[in-house]
């Protein structure tokens, strides 16, 4: 955990976590002052239980998705999970992927502000997009095999993703649009399809 935190480039994620509450922020600061990065647990604890679960769901999607081989530069290349815009996970996603693999590849979390940085992503997580941004994203991802995930419960999004996290009766559910998935030359595990709501 600690090692992961160290090599993780997403210090802002932690900063986002501090915003989750004064006490936790204080504790985080204290830890940072101590010069360690091992703050994920107390930090994530601060986040509602929803996001750690979503973090797990997110990286696990990688396990149920088959990318075309040209999506990776080399067999050792990791699967990159990108978060565009706000990071609602705090440290939870980094913690969740730490040590995990999918198809033998490591998992890496990146946070981007700009759409043009999304070319190296394999999974794109967005919390919503306006019409302009949606166009940009579509353009950026055109021809690319990127699994797009929208986490916008009850929120209208201009960009329709392949997978959408929904909340039903305090349970997180998945809705899958198969069309863009096939268009992006991605293949989803049938077991995933069975556990999700599939929309043509």
């Amino acid at each position, binding site marked *: 955990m600690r090692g992961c935190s160290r090599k993780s480039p997403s210090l802002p994620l932690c900063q986002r976590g501090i915003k989750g509450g004064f006490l936790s922020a204080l504790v985080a600061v204290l830890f940072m002052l101590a010069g360690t990065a091992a703050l994920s647990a107390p930090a994530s604890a601060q986040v509602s239980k929803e996001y750690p679960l979503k973090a797990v769901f997110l990286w*696990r999607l990688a396990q149920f998705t088959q990318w075309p081989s040209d999506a990776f530069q080399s067999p050792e290349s990791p699967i990159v999970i990108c978060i565009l815009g706000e990071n609602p996970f705090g440290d939870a996603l980094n913690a969740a992927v730490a040590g995990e693999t999918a198809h033998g590849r490591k998992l890496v979390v990146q946070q981007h502000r700009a759409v043009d940085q999304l070319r190296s992503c394999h999974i794109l997580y967005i919390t919503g997009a306006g019409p302009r941004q949606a166009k940009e994203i579509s353009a950026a991802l055109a021809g690319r095999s990127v699994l797009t995930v929208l986490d916008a419960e009850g929120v209208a999004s201009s960009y329709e993703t392949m997978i959408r996290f929904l909340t039903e009766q305090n349970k997180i559910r998945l809705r899958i649009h198969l069309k863009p998935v096939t268009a992006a030359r991605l293949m989803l*595990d049938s077991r995933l399809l069975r556990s999700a709501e599939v929309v043509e």
Partner: protein
Amino acid sequence: MAQRQTSIQKRVRAVILLASVIVLFVTAGAFVIYEAIDFRAQLVRNLSTLAAVIADNSVAPLAFDNKAIAEEILAALRAQSDIEAAAVYDDDGNIFATYPPALPASLLPSAVAGKGHQFRDGALVLFVPVLQEQKPIGTLYLRSSFRGLYEQLWRYGIIVLIVLAGAFGIAFMLSTLLQKRISEPILALTQAAETITRQSDYSVRAPKLTDDELGTLTDAFNRMLSETQENQASLAEQARLLDLSTDAIIVRDLQGVIQFWNRGAQEVYGWTGAEALGKQKHQLLQTEFTEPLEQIMDKLQRQGRWAGELVQRRRDGTRIHVSTRWVLDHETGTNLARVLITDNDITLQKQAEELMKSEAKRLDALVEQRTATLQETIGELEAFSYSISHDMRAPLRAMQGYAKALLADYDGRLDAEAKRYLDRIFRGANRLDLLIQDVLAYSRVAKGEIDLHPVYLERLVDDIISANPEFQAPLARISVEVPLHRVLGHDAYLTQCVTNLLGNAVKFVPPGVVPEVCIRTERVDGKIRIWFEDNGIGIDPLHHQRIFQIFGQVHPEKKYGGTGIGLAIVRKAVQRMNGEAGVESEENHGSRFWLLLNGGEI
């Protein structure tokens, strides 16, 4: 044979059936046991496979926390009736989904194991990890009942029973067919043996049905039968020969029980073999022993044989004499020793013998009686002849005396012719007198009792020579070789004998020869022989017997004179003295007369 199940048929069938049933039971048992063992492994395998599929399908619901889907997946277990319970646990060991949805806690495990199976409470319990990318994200729990096992075993059991029944039926049919191959030759043998036992017919042969050991047995049986038949025939022949014997041939054991009885025995004793066999011989024949049976048996044991005569009774009660020979037969061992007895009926011989004995006795008595009569007659005759002879001498003496007186007194008045006639009357009378004297002497010798005692021969001979001038020189030379042995005799008889013999010796000499006689004795076998050897004319051996008979004179009396009774008197006298007389002589070579008498030494 078909209507009656014989023992061998039953046995062979039982063996075949037993073997078949045992094999079937062992096979079926092994099969059922194997199934029972294998079923568990199979159950584990099947359940593991099922669990693997369900675990795999449970990955996504677990990963994405979709309980409904997980339960839906578990609900697919409905198809497996043996599955009593199933549950999916999450990574932390909390129940995520169950089957059936309302699962009683009793069917859930008390603790969640990571992996593996166990049989407990009559059910198989299996834990399988739910893996995603080789990492466990949960655990699947399955519980399967053994109902399937029991059902399957029950099915197997029924199948086994059906197969057993069918196989038993087939084995029964096969055994019925197969047992014939074994039992039929044996039954054929048995039948042959029974026929032989019942009918004593050794010409029966068992049919040979196979070429195996039973065939060999049948051959051997038939061969033995052939040999027995031959033996039987030769025994019958021997028995026939034994029956031909007119002697009774009987075999009895040492206790006297009759074991063999031939036709001869039947003829001799009248009892048939069937009546006699097994009976006590001496009881049956009422044997009268001439010596005690114990003694006879003792002899038999020691010498192996005994022969004798017995009196026994025929069946009709007649007493018969038998000559019997007993031989001990040790051949069959000491304990089984037997006695072979050969009897023949000698009653007729016995009767003939008895008859002859009594006849002989009668004849003896007759002879004795006749002899007595004869001796009486002889005595009378002798007395008669003695008195006749004696009485005849008186007229003879008158004839002699008057003839002599006539010659002397009328010498001048008688012519020569008359003198010659007178001389012949005188000599005739003389001769008749001599004859009468000899006859008297013979009669004296022949009759009356005599008393024998030792006699001194030397003195006796001396007296005789002294009393007779013709035995003295110069008329004769008589020498005696002393000593002469004493003999047992009678003085008067011996004097008669010696006088007669010396008289003959000096009388029968050629003309002009002076007679010489030598008297000597010798000992012969305890007796004494007295020799009288002379130089006389000798006697042809042809006449040696005749000269000792009365009037057995060889030479014409005119030449040598004599009555012809002298040697007869000698023989008679010597016989009365229990002796013998004889002669050794050839004509012209002298005679050697001898007397053989008992010695006179005490």
